[in-house]
Structures are given as structure tokens and as C-alpha cells.
């Protein structure tokens, strides 16, 4: 079976900063994969490269076998990305935002699925509210909804619970777990290591643009008996 995401020797520099220094990893279909690392480790650059927002200097990235540069249309169709920043278009309400995002992916008349996403993210009551009037947590939910409108098989969540209250976090993870259970591949970056420990089957730890550890969560934990993932994280980065 093709990997959901295949990253081979990806290098990216921004001037003198080496953001990615030859990253290679495969993420299998249906995995719940954690991409962890301190600030500046290269997680967001890697995700942006996967999403086509950043063009690597060398190396290749494929989504379900489709190169993100050469075959970008198919690769992007297979990918749903929740960006890290809390961004929104102030001209539209929640439903309009989701309809527009569906259209960008070539889908008209998507209201049944939009209603389902709204219900699952507890946004039904906000469907006709302008984006400007939503709280930060609500805006974050809409970002998640936008990434899901085209039912992508690979979903990338770049710190989706940053600044989000506990209730939403739990609801969000319940929904994402369900999608993962239905076969969607989930790639998660987060600073909440207990979330990664609870959700991810496999974890890559990044430091200074490199993958310094890549294994199943169980193996990583077994290598440091009695330690929490946070302690594993700190020890691995220090070594």
C-alpha cells in the first residue's frame, strides 16, 4: 500500500537559516502521526512544504503517490490542512466560508457534509454568524471545518488546540479520532505532549531541521521506562 505521505531528503533554507536539513520519513495510510519538536525545529516548514506553501530546495514529497510540486492539483485535493495561525476572511459568515472552501476544491452543493461538520464541531448555532464575531476558539473550529470540507484522506493539524478550551479540545479530538477510525490519515503537530501521547500511534521528533527520533509511541515510551512523553521528548532532544 502506498504511504499516505512520503518525504525524501527534503532540504529547505531561508537565507542562512537551515529550516530542513534532509528530512525523510513515510507516514502510512490510516496512521495517527505526531510531529513534535521545539519551536524552530522545522515542523511548520515541513508541513508547509507538504501543503505546497513552501517549495523545498531539494528532495521530494508525495501525498498518496502524487508529487506536491509536479502533480500539485491531485496532491492538494488529497490534503486538508489546519494552519497554525488563527486566520479568517472577515467578509463572510461561517457557512459562506465553508461553501467557498468547498468550491475551491471543486465541490458544489456540499451542504449535507457542511452541516455534519458544523454539528460535530458544535458550530451549528454559529453557521450564519460573521467570522469577525466569533471567539478565538470558534474561529479555530472553523479552521478545522475548512480543512475537512473536501473530505481529504490526509488531514494535517498544525497545533489545532493552541488557545482552545478543554471542552472544545475534547470534542475536537473525539471528531478527529472518528475520522481516523474511518481511515483518514492524521498528521498532528502540538506542544501538548499528553495529547500526542494519547492520540498518536507513531511520533517523529524534530530538532534543528532534522528528524532525531522516529518510532511508535509505545517503543519511544518503552525505551525510557516510567517516563512521560514529555520526559522522553526532553531526553531525546538533549541526547
Amino acid at each position, binding site marked *: 500500500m502506498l504511504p499516505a505521505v512520503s518525504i525524501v531528503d527534503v532540504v529547505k533554507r*531561508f537565507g542562512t537559516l537551515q529550516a530542513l536539513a534532509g528530512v525523510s520519513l513515510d507516514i502510512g495510510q490510516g496512521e495517527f502521526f505526531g510531529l513534535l519538536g521545539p519551536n524552530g525545529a522545522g515542523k511548520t516548514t515541513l508541513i*508547509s512544504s507538504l*501543503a*505546497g*506553501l*513552501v*517549495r523545498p530546495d531539494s528532495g521530494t514529497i508525495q501525498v498518496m503517490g502524487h508529487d506536491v510540486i509536479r502533480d*500539485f*492539483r*491531485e*496532491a*492538494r*485535493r488529497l*490534503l486538508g*490542512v489546519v*494552519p497554525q*495561525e488563527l*486566520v*479568517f*476572511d*472577515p*467578509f*463572510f459568515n461561517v457557512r*459562506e466560508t465553508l461553501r*467557498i*472552501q*468547498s*468550491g*475551491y*476544491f*471543486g*465541490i*458544489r452543493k456540499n451542504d449535507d457534509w457542511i452541516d455534519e461538520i458544523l454539528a460535530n464541531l458544535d458550530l451549528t448555532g454559529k453557521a450564519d454568524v460573521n467570522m469577525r464575531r466569533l471567539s478565538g476558539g470558534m474561529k479555530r473550529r472553523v479552521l478545522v471545518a*475548512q480543512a475537512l470540507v473536501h473530505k481529504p484522506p490526509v488531514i494535517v493539524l498544525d497545533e489545532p488546540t493552541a488557545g482552545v478550551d478543554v471542552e472544545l479540545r475534547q470534542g475536537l479530538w473525539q471528531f478527529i479520532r472518528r475520522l481516523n477510525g474511518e481511515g483518514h490519515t492524521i498528521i498532528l503537530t502540538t506542544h501538548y505532549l499528553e495529547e500526542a501521547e494519547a492520540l498518536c500511534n507513531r511520533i517523529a521528533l524534530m530538532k534543528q531541521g532534522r528528524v532525531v527520533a522516529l518510532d511508535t509511541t509505545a517503543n519511544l515510551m518503552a525505551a525510557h521506562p516510567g517516563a512521560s512523553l514529555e520526559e522522553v521528548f526532553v531526553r531525546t532532544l538533549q541526547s
Partner: protein
Amino acid sequence: MIGFLTLLEKEFLRFWKVAFQTVAAPVLTALLYLLIFGHVLDDHVQVHGVRYTSFLIPGLVMMQVLQNAFANSSSSLIQAKITGSIVFVLLPPIPYSAFFAAYVLAAVLRGMMVGLGVLLATVWFVDLKIVAPLWIMAFAMLGGGLFGALGMIAGIWSEKFDQLASFQNFLIMPLTMLSGVFYSIYTLPAFWQGVSHYNPVFYMIDGFRYGFFGVSDVAPETSLLVVVACFAVVSWGTLSLLKRGWKLRA
């Protein structure tokens, strides 16, 4: 195709939802120009045998078409870049040619709506005839398209609103104001007449005006050729930048 149509619809709605600011305000500005310049000069000036107020109206219409087409694409892109919402159009599988076409067409639409608004608001002041409507449409659409594409370049290039403002104030405004909106270039000294021939906006205004009066400073065919050539060059430049992802994809 659906991606293109959605982006076009979104760009249309973006200005239509604030039409008071994006359509009504420029119409009022043009009306004020007409009232002031028309009042001062109508009894004293004729151009090509046409009363000054009549001569002025097509120029004002075209000036607003161009300026608003530029404003639409440039403001949309810079707002999206500064707020970060540009990712919503960069993540989906929209080809760069569809991206270009949607922004330019939306810019043309806004330009044409403002132009029509100016025409409807000012036509009561004079007995304005339309001699060649096809020339009017051709120059309005091509001019709007050219300035919509220029707006895309400005919006992509600018990282701050003041950079966009300098593009607008130091390039777009002089090009439009010194293009013969308010005068025939044959009223200028020979040197400035020559300089005016290097301003592509002069050909847009002159060709557009030909559609109303059947007279112009240069042959409308020549103007059309110049405008088509400029549109082709600016479009090619914009498409090349989009293909490279210049300032959009790191």
C-alpha cells in the same frame, strides 16, 4: 472550473458586500469632479467640437474603471496576505491561470460597475451620444483587465499597505490623471504631447472616448493595438510571477 468560478464569486462578493465603499464612493467622487470642472470650464472650453462637460464624462468613466479595477485586485491580495487568509486560496488545487483569471475578471466587474454608475450619475448633465458601443466595451474591458492584472502585481509585491499606497499614488494616479481624462493632449506643448504618447492610459481614454464621439486624438485601431499589447505583456508578467509563486509561496 468550479474552483475558478468560486474564486470569482468570492472576489465579487468581497467588494459587493461593501458596495457603498467600493462602488458608490467612486461614483460620488467622479460626480464631484464633473460638477466642479464642468461648472468652471463648460462655457469656455470645447474639445474636438464637443462641449467640455460632454468631453469630460467618458474620461471620468474610464478613469474610475481603471482605478477601481486596480484597487479591487490589489486590496484583496494585500488584505489576504496581511491577515494570512491567503492560505485559503493557496492550499486548494486552483491552477495559477484560474487564479489570475478570477482576480482579473472580478477587477473588471468592479471597474465596469463603477464605470456604469458614473455614466448613469452624470449622463443627466449633458446630451451624451454613443457612436460606437463596441469600442467602448472593448476599451473598458481591456483597460479594466490591464489594471486588474497590475493590481495583482502590486498586491503580491506589497508587504505593507503603505507600499501598496506608494504604487497607487506614484504610478497609477499620475498615469491616469496625466492621460487626457481632463484635456485633449493636443492642448499640451509639443514636448508633453510626445511624452503622453508613452502613457498607455492615454490610449485607453482616447479609444474609449472615440466610442462616444467618433473623434479621437489618435486612430482607435492604434489605441486598441497598444492596449492589447500592454495587456498581453502585463498578463504574461503576472502569470509568470504566479507560476513561480513569487512572494506567495516561500
